[in-house]
Each structure stands twice: as C-alpha cells, then as structure tokens.
C-alpha cells in the first residue's frame, strides 16, 4: 500500500516538503522530528490536526517507513483538535506500520485525542502509550 508522498495543493501556499525538513508548518499545525530513542523515531505534533495536516502526517510516516524507520511514535500531547481525517490517518498508518513489520504508537495523547478515540471505541486498533519512557521500556498498551 505504498503511496507517493507528493501533494498537489493547487495554488495554495504549500508547506515545506516533508522529506527535506525536520519541521513542517501548516497553519496552526506543526510537526517536527523529535529525538530518536534507539530504533524509535519520535514525531511531535501540535495544533489542529485537520484534513490537510492529516495528509502531511501520512506523507511523513510514509517517508520514514521508506527510510527504514519502522518504529514510530507520535507525541500528541500538544494536539488541540483532532479531525476525523486525523484519526483516519492514525488508523491507516497503524495498519501500514504493522504490514511493514513495525509499529506506530500514539504517545501522551491529549484529552481531545483520547475523547475521540474513546467515543469511537477504536483504542484496540491503536497503540496508546502514556509516555515515551513507557514505550522504550516496553510498557505500551499493546
């Protein structure tokens, strides 16, 4: 299920390409590479995770998978809004990482994220981890 990471946005101002930047800004949304912890690569997300931001997350995940990083953590502690598309990307990417013999973890989810996850009862599809430390020492919920 590999997909091209290109993004056509017509005449809109385009965010910096994901592959060449460690920080991506799109409106209120910000995504930046965090520290690597062994085989774990961390992405820190903040702001509004709407449809456009969700596609940027998906592209960055696809890029990192293509680069051989198969254990990815998304720090969601600073996410202030989670659109359906954002949740859809988490669900889709969790499957993508599983297929690539890796794993995707949602770390320190903010209350807005956890409320949507709980409302839709999709926790069992996702790996929700309280903190990076829990993940590193293997205390993840999955």
């Amino acid at each position, binding site marked *: *299920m590999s*997909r*091209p990471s290109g*993004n*056509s*946005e*017509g*005449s*809109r101002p385009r965010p910096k390409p994901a592959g060449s930047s460690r920080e991506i800004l799109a409106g209120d949304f910000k995504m930046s590479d965090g520290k690597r912890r062994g085989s774990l690569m961390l992405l820190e997300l903040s702001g509004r995770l*709407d*449809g*456009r931001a*969700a*596609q940027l997350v*998906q592209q960055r995940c696809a890029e990192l998978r293509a680069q051989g990083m198969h254990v990815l953590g998304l720090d969601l502690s600073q996410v202030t809004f989670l*659109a*359906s*598309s*954002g*949740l*859809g*990307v988490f*669900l*889709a990417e*969790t*499957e*993508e990482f599983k*297929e690539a013999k890796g794993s995707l973890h949602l770390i320190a989810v903010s*209350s807005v994220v*956890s*409320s*949507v*996850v*709980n*409302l*839709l*009862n*999709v*926790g*069992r*599809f996702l790996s*929700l981890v309280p903190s990076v430390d829990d993940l590193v020492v293997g205390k993840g*919920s999955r």
Partner: protein
Amino acid sequence: MKKNPTPSMARKLSQEMPRPDPRHPSRQSRTRGQAVTRSVDGPAERESDLQRHSLLSFFELSKELDYSLNIYDFADRALFNFMGHLGTPHSALWILPPEATGSLVLIRSHGIPESVARQIGMQCIETLVDRLLRDRRIQFRDDLSDSFTPADLELLRSRGLALFAPLLAPDKLLGVVALGTRQNTAADPFEIEVLQASAEFFAVALQNSMFYHQLQESVRELRQANENLQELDRAKNEFVSNMHHELRTPVTVMQMYAESLLEEAVAGSSQREHLKIVLQQTEKLKRMLENLLDYSGLAGNRIEVQSGPGDISALLRDYYDNRRNGVAARLHDFRLVLEDDLPAVIFEPRRMRQVLDILLDNAMRFTPQGARITLRAHRLPDDPAMVRIQMEDNGPGIAADKLHKLFVPFLQVDGSLTREKNGLGLGLALANRLVQAMGGKILAASEIDRGTTFTLLLPIA
C-alpha cells in the same frame, strides 16, 4: 465529547457494548443505547456525542475537498475522513473509468494490501455496480448474500470491509467506497445517514475535480497543438520568405548584369567579369534548386541512391583536396584526419560528396572566420560493422534543446540567422535522407562555445 473518559473507563465502556450483529450492523446499533446504561455519560450523551462527531466529520469533509487536488490526494482526504468518522482502519476506493467497458480501477486502499483490494474490486465490487446504481444507497455486506458467493463474503470479512457506498453522479456511478466498521460497536443509523450524505457530497466534488483536471488536460493539449501549429506556420513563412530571397537575389543579379551587358553592347574589358558573375549566380541557383528538387524527390521516394562498396579514404582525400583552398579562402582552417587502412564502406560517391558539401557549407556558415573545421574518419571500436565520418567545428555550438530541430526540413535553429547566413534550412534534412538512403545514419552533437560535430555512420562493405 464533553468529557474525557479515562482509558480504564473506555475499556469498561467497550466491554459493555453489545456484540455487533454481523448481518445487520445498523440494526444492531439501535439497541446499543439501551444496553449501555452504565456508561460514564449515559447512553443519551454518548449518542449525542457520536452524532456530533458524525456531523463534524461531514463539515470537515466539506472543507477538505479542494477541487484542484489530484484524484489520489482527493481519495486520501475522503477515505481518512470516512475512516475517522466510523472508526475503522479499513477502507478502499475504486473508480469506474469513463469507458463503459472498463473495469473498476483501484485508487486507494488503507488497511488492505493493494493486491487484495484489486482482487476485491474485480471479484466483489464489480458485481455490486448495478445494485448500487439502482438502489443509490449504502449497502451492507451481510445483506448481500444474494450478490456475493460465500468465498466473496469470507474475503470481505477477512479484510474487515462491511459496507459499500456508491459515489453517484446524476446519471451514473463514478465509483465505490468500501469501509469497515469499528469493532464491537457498529455505526448507528444516524452515522450511516451522515456517511451517505458525505459520500454524495464527495461524489459531486469528485466529479467536479475530474472535470477540472480533464479541462486542464484539454487546455494543455490545445496549447501544445497551438504551439505546433505556430511552429509549422513559422516554418512555412520562413520557407516562403527564404525561397523568395534566395531565388530572387541571383535572378536579380543575373538580370542586372545581363542588362548591363546589353547596355554595353560594345563589349569592353568588364564584360568578361560580368559574365563570370552571371555564371556564378546561375550555378548557385542551380545547386539550390537541385537540393530542393532532390529533397522533394527523396521525400516521395522518387530518387534512387545507387550505393555500393567503395574506398571512403580515397573519396575523402579527393574531397578534401578539392575543397580546402576554397575553404581557406573564406578564412576557415580545414583539416583532414584519416585513420589508416579504413575498410571499404557502402556509399554512393556523388551523394557522399553532396552530404559532405552540406556539412562543410553548414560549418562554414555557422562558425566565425578563423574557426577550425576537421573532417575525420575512423573505425568504431565498439561497432566493427560501421565507419564513422565526422565534420567537426569549434564554433559557437548549438543549444541542446535546438539540436533535434536540425534535421527538420525548412527549419533552422535560429530563424533570424537563416537569411543572414543564406540558408534554406533544407541542407541537413537532405543530408539526413541521403545518408539514410545509403544505409547509414547521421547524428549531431554540440556544446555551447565548444563547437558542433556531425557524425555519419556508414556500413562497412
């Protein structure tokens, strides 16, 4: 979504959910509210939150679909939205190509490998097309036992796909979206209604986007066709203009001197010079007309080239000896470099000289005085069947993007130079045809400020 249940509460909530009725996920959900009496917020609040989530998903979708997105990004935005709307990790979208006979084309799948999604498209979704077009509603897998074989149903179950939404234009089916449902809690009727509305909205947006991109493509094709026509028109105009100038000038010159001779009926000492000029111009006109006739003849395959084995070294030496003084008179440094013991090659001597004339005249015309022009011939180390003959100059060179135009008849790489350099833009096209007729080929290579090399490859006898 007013409150934020803790993970333990959510687990409890999940355990309290009734098992879904696999045959009727929507019907099962109607009982969910009654069953979940001990949830944190209560069933009414939870149902209200789910409905709010559904509506919010619909509103988000309306903001996310930008008609300028390509169909794959468009599909991603919609599928992610639908997945987050229902809470499922499985989705796929197929498009029905405009051609009536075309099969469904998989655009995207998430949570299902592409190969499997293609198989599902061919094996399962194709059989649903008529039904979706007729009913124009979301269909549930477990209500379709009459449409699917047990193997189809098992395939769909194994990949978590439970419902199929038609993407409808007013008079046709554009495509199909397949989605799973979240585990343990099936979508309720309100969610399905909103999903139906989302799919309808998405279909309209998708059709607009497809129209937009088709229009863009048509505009591009029209622009390209227009540019080609302009190029042809320019070539035609230049040809007409060049023909006019090239033919008129020598005729005018001849006429002028003829008139001069007439006026000087009693010939003086200048009469001989005037006659020489008349003869020169007549010869020039004759050669140009010859080339033009030759080209049109070759284009119509009316001229036969009588090729045969011959001594190319002897021909090149002879040619060099005949031309070098004339070239030197025009202040060009003409050199010959021949490899020893070249084998006999297939050519026709008269046509070969004609080709060499074209290449040498071309080199002289487009290099400044003092430039060096070298005629080389040698074997090809990597192709024992061919001999390479090159006319190489160290002139200003030709831009890479213009090289492909060199052998196009009546075109010159720079129209502004054509008249100044007295060319018809026909020579290289003729040379190309002559070399091909002799069983060889001609190539051009150039580098700006370094020079240009024309290479003839001729078969060894």
